[in-house]
């Protein structure tokens, strides 16, 4: 079971986030899907919201590349530790494109039932992204 959930989680990352194929979201995401993204003020729900979220990140970072660093599966749940890299070439959360490349890390826990995502929880380095894009000042390093 855990091998299957890992493969499904990997497929969404590879095909949708990295490849821009949003049709795979129809296949892999349940209509009852609830997404908890630390960067969003409230959970989003449903397939179209999932597509919109992926499309928004890809519009802001057209060369977006999520690399899976580690996956741990248990029953219906799979945890994915990932690193995301991309060049900020489009609006993101009101931030105009900066042309800067950024690298952030995050951890996502997915609940997958009958081959489909039903709920996800993601915490990622939103502050680090803001600092890298120059929206929030970063302390100078020694």
């Amino acid at each position: 079971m855990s091998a299957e959930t890992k493969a499904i989680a990997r497929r969404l990352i590879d095909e949708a986030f990295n490849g821009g194929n949003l049709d795979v979201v129809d296949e892999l995401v349940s209509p009852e899907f609830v997404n908890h993204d630390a960067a969003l003020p409230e959970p989003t729900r449903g397939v179209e919201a999932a597509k919109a979220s992926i499309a928004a990140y890809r519009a802001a970072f057209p060369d977006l590349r999520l690399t899976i660093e580690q996956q741990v599966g248990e029953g219906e749940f799979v945890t994915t530790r990932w690193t995301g890299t991309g060049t900020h070439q489009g609006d993101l959360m009101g931030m105009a494109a900066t042309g800067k490349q950024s690298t952030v890390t995050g951890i996502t826990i997915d609940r997958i039932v009958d081959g489909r995502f039903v709920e996800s929880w993601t915490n990622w380095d939103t502050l680090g992204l803001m600092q890298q894009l120059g929206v929030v000042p970063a302390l100078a390093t020694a």
Partner: protein
Amino acid sequence: MFPSLPHPRHMPCPDCGESVAADERHAHRCDDDRWLTYQLFQLRDEIASLEEQVAAYLASPRGRFELWDAEQRRRG
């Protein structure tokens, strides 16, 4: 003063925009193509504005005369 404030592990190079890990920033060297792309991206509004200004000038009476004059010179 704020010793616990986080600092991201990566920061974009201020010259070429490449994401550089903190422990690699001293060894970083800008790729020429990336540097040029990044610099042009930073100037995109000015470049677009300049093109608009040139187009507007060329559409003005004086600009149209200069275009006509340049064409006469080109024909010899």
